[in-house]
């Protein structure tokens, strides 16, 4: 069997932790930049770890952080050095294969989701997110998109709010009152 088999021939996506993406003998667009970023970040962390307790004692609170960040820095530098020597992949571009517009748009969606979650409440935010996301990905017409999104949201809400009793920000929707209403209805029916 091919030791470099990635489970996915066309995109080398790295769909799992056992089969990370990337190419063994080539450098993907942006790979060197990422390695350099990791090196820089590790260096900053190492500096910060040194500030915890310096070289006080082997058992000082900063010892293990210093050791781990030092390992990070060394590993990141080795990776950067190895990556820099690899030939570039000729068939890929950063725009198309690493950071396509859809991915950027979705990261944007998620940031907005986080911002809107508290003030607007879970249900409206999630509904808007699902409608926008499904519409964007599927290209379906509005009625089908909205129906699918609302149905999926209803299922999720029932499972998590009612069965798992996860508390989500209610925002503008009087969730608790609605649940209470149905509870009262149920117990009223039972009695």
């Amino acid at each position, binding site marked *: 069997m091919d030791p470099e088999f*990635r489970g996915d021939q066309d995109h080398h996506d790295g769909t799992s932790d056992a089969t990370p993406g990337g190419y063994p003998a080539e450098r993907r667009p*942006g*790979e060197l930049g990422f390695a350099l970023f990791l090196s820089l970040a590790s260096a900053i962390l190492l500096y910060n770890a040194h500030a915890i307790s310096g070289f006080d004692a082997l058992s000082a609170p900063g010892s293990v952080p210093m050791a781990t960040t030092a390992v*990070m820095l060394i590993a990141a530098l080795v990776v950067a050095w190895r990556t820099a020597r690899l030939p570039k992949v000729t068939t890929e571009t950063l725009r198309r294969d690493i950071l396509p517009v*859809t991915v950027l748009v979705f990261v944007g969606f998620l940031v907005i989701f986080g911002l809107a979650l508290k003030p607007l409440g879970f249900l409206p935010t999630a509904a808007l997110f699902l409608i926008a996301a499904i519409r964007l990905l599927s290209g379906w017409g509005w009625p089908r998109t909205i129906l699918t999104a609302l149905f999926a949201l209803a299922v999720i809400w029932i499972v998590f709010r009612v069965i798992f009793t996860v508390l989500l920000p209610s925002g503008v929707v009087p969730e608790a009152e609605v649940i209470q209403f149905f509870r009262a209805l149920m117990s009223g029916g039972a009695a």
Partner: protein
Amino acid sequence: METLLALLTVFTQPDLLLLVAIGTFAGIYIGAIPGLSVTMAVSILISFTFSWEVYPAISLMVGIYMGGVYGGSRTAILLNIPGAPSAIATAMDGYPMAQRGEAGQAIGVTTVMSFFGGLIGILVLALAAPYVSVFALKFQPRDYMLLAVLGILLVGSLSSGSLVKGIFAGALGLAIGAVGRDPLTFTERLTFDLQLMEGGISFIAVMIGMFGVSEALLQLQNVDKTAVRQKITKIVPSFGVIRKYLPLSLQTSTIGVIIGALPGTGGDIAALMAYDHAKRVTKNPKVPFGKGAMEGLVAPETANNAAVGGAFIPMMTLGIPGDAVTAIMIGALFIHGLNPGPMLMVDQPDMFWFIVGALFMANIFMLIFGLTGIRIFTKIVEMPRAVIIPLILLLSIVGAYAVNNSISDVYWMLGFGVFGYFMRHYGYPLGPVILGVILSRLLDDNWRRAIISEREDLGRFFEGILTSPLSFTLFAAVILIFVSQTPLWTALKTRLFRKASQ
């Protein structure tokens, strides 16, 4: 007697039994849908079940784990897309079988063999863990430290890709785990003087980000891939077929249990190794490997399910996870106030026997659900990705938020999601990060305990390692993994793999 009662807990309480069943059922589908992984499901689930009692929460997770490891094989056979990493090897021979119109038989054999492998894994867990835990009581702090390092290194080195990247990932995990106030001296560590970071980074946010969000972002590139319909007829395999592959399945189950029990390595690696083994020992397969050989299905499927039981051995006895999913389960036990490790087996043996019982039931449910309900199955798997991906993202957000009711956890999750996305693209394994986060505390505490007991003397510390057989073995293993990075070893490995592929 008490042991027996604990073992039977899951049978005597219908609600627990139901949760195991639901978990297994859900696990099969989660495993089968490409893009949904067991690791992702379990990490999202922790945040939803943390307000539950510990038994129901564990029941659900055990079911999902067992079902998910098996479920990946379905899509591997039908669509040539491994639904879960542990099914990568299954696709190599399963899909050619489906192309010949033998999908039903392939699924049937896979199911029975997964059950068989799972059973062996559970048996070994039940028999071996009590002994390992007695042995584990003799472990010194330095042994724990070495074992933690070994676990992180193993997951980085046995998975394909570069070990250096694995080491980086493991160290990153340890560093993430160290953020916040030091539990012993209350000193702030790696907080950049931000109040936000004083309490540390929620490991659930890290996990959901790395396994949920980054996966979903990657899948955005595969939205258009459509599923292929397959007609499936008879699936329950004949007894003769099963008997024929029994010897092989015993061997590959053993491989599975051992790989599963090694700290840090799980079903995905076990399956690939078992596949290699089957290729080596099967002299005259009826159909060549890679073209639809039955042996190529039996080997990975027994091994990956056997690895489930194996992975629980170090988790329950040492508090060191056997793979990424058990790492998350350790996190779940922590949240429920339990402390996995040798003392758990002494103080609360019930917990251990309960898990064994739940695993056993999950295995049986897997067999039942696996051999039935094929029709619904194809429907669910054909659910368009344009709907699945937004749902994963939504669940990730809900999950990250739910644990502490904090928006900042959502942003941590997002940050780690984007970071994990790049890691996946550039070939950095994510497993070691999670292992690092979970083991950070254990490694730190034990290092300090070990070095304080040696009066801060490194010489005495190493003397201790060299004179104790156990520490020495662990130390040698750590060194060996580093040596495996030298060019000499790489040459040897390529030769080995070339031989196996012939």
